[in-house]
């Protein structure tokens, strides 16, 4: 390989790069806009006063998100179980696979619109995004590492001391900085450009089909009280009538020890369902049809079943026609822009 070869390769690389740049990423590279609330979204609940999103902090957070040194044997990253192309879930896995192929007990939830999240995890317990990464990093089945070890590994790398300095002013790596950088990345994982959003924002050229619109009407009538627009969750914890799992996961109860919290799980958003199957806290349903049939005919009246699922009869009556239309509407919540946003990808 001589010098000439290198030059040729280099020029080719530039061309390849230039081609990619032809897409809208150019603007993202030019100016980092920070956190911006989508026009059709409510005010976020995350306390940005304590952690303003900056370009440097975001980039550090993104590096950390894709950094295998967060795990004991440097094999697992946050991105291992939160894969962007699957809307930051581990598509196709009912429960997540962590270090040494250990299995957890829950389906990895999407990293999406977390600035509007009041509580984290299927079973709650964490109320501040800054505190959330401690769980996967230290959990035996996930990354099985302790925080001080992670910091020490990062401290030995000029890449990170430089990035911490750029983001926070000095090279010091500590818990607050580490967690806040990760938060900055996660806060920027905003999904707000599905067809639904564009229609609701009255962007030119976007409208629902008749089927979608009919699905939307049925959705608002039968699903919308828990899966509240525009985030498609009300952020509450409810028992949606799943038969009790073999591991007897009691959901929110473990964190509150309140009897009326038994078998309640967080109401998930319905955005990006195309990419995030399987569904429910333990990933028991492989398709949307299976989910809708659960609500139609499979509700089990376990302790603390949500009253909305037990009115005149158990469940929510859905005809085959209803289901088809609801699914047509739910498909308008898939956000291609989100799963392809290069800004959120491993660099």
């Amino acid at each position, binding site marked *: 390989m001589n010098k000439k070869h290198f030059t040729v390769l280099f020029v080719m690389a530039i061309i390849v790069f230039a081609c990619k740049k032809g897409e809208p990423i150019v603007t993202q590279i030019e100016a980092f806009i920070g956190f911006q609330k989508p026009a059709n979204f409510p005010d976020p609940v995350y*306390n940005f006063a*304590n952690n303003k999103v900056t370009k440097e902090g975001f980039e550090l957070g993104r590096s950390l998100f894709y950094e295998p040194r967060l795990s004991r044997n440097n094999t697992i990253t946050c991105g291992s179980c939160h894969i962007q192309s699957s809307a930051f879930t581990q598509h196709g896995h009912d429960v997540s696979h962590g270090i040494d192929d250990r299995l957890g007990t829950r389906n990895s939830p999407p990293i999406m619109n977390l600035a509007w999240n*009041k*509580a984290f*995890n299927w079973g709650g*317990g*964490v*109320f*501040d995004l*800054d*505190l959330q990464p*401690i*769980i996967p*990093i*230290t*959990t035996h089945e996930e990354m099985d590492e*302790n*925080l*001080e070890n992670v*910091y020490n590994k990062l401290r030995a790398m000029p890449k990170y001391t430089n990035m911490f300095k750029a983001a926070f002013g000095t090279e010091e790596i*500590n*818990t*607050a900085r580490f*967690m*806040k950088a990760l938060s900055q990345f996660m806060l920027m994982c905003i999904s707000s450009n599905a067809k639904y959003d564009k229609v609701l924002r009255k962007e030119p050229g976007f409208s629902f089909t008749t089927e979608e619109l009919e699905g939307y009407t049925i959705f608002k009538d039968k699903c919308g009280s828990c899966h509240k627009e525009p985030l498609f969750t009300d952020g509450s914890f409810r028992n949606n009538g799943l038969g009790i799992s073999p591991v007897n996961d009691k959901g929110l109860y*473990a*964190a*509150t*020890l*309140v009897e009326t919290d038994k078998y309640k799980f967080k109401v998930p958003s319905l955005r990006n369902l195309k990419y995030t199957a399987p569904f429910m806290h333990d990933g028991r349903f492989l398709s949307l049809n299976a989910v809708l049939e659960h609500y139609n005919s499979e509700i089990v009246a376990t302790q603390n079943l949500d009253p909305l699922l037990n009115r005149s009869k158990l469940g929510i009556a859905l005809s085959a026609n209803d289901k088809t239309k609801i699914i047509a509407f739910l498909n308008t919540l898939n956000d291609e822009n989100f799963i392809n946003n290069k800004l959120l990808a491993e660099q």
Partner: protein
Amino acid sequence: MKKLLSIISLAAALLISCSKENETTPTFDEKNLAPFSIEFDNIVGERTFSINNTASLYTNAAGEKFSISRLQYFISNIKVATADGKTYAVPQEKSYFLINGADKTTRFAKVEVPVADYTKISFTLGVDSLRSTMDLSKRTGVLDPATGGGHDGGGMYWGWNSGYIFFKFEGNSNAISDDVNGDPTGKKQFKYHIGGFGGYSAPTINNIKTITVDLTTAGIAKVRKDRQSNVHLFVDVMKVFNGKNTVSLAANPNVMFSRYSTKVAANLTEIFKHDHTEN
């Protein structure tokens, strides 16, 4: 009569000034600070405390023999009070201490309080709910979730249910079975991780305990600029088992975030006893 009065008052003045020379009861000034410490001297019933005492086991009221492998607890929010009701709270940022039974150097909670004579102290066993929910940048030192490694080791932070372990007490006992009701790993370990600050958005168990210690019997604390006043407390961890609730290792080898933990926490209010004060 007038003359007599002035003589009396003169004599009184002399008396006061005399006593002042011996005792110097200073005026209470919140800015006039001097060193003060509380010593947490761990004991086990009638015996001294030692880690990994496998050759000389302790015995609790249930008759169970045990050794201790770990003892750590948070002391915070120290307050002092004088006989005439003046109080001072140590500023919160300087008021968090992690006492580690394996490290004697951690046994003092060293603070500064105004120069005065104190007849009462109080402190929190645990971490208050406010600090438990504060921004991470306000949780450094012993409150850093990274401190001590994970909660399986020396760490005092619960990641899965955000909050601190207030009192961590571990050891081994042959009274513990090898099945799922005991320690299935066969190590016969007991683990008492007592925490719970009351819940963030909805109430749950609250195991924060405020401990008040009257100093009038065993010696008031005379805090002065040129001295180190030290309130020496015995911390009897045997009371974890033998308090108002009798706790059995065989019946409850693991007590963590559960309703039962409130029974153990109730016993924790009895572990502190004022032995003497060094002025």
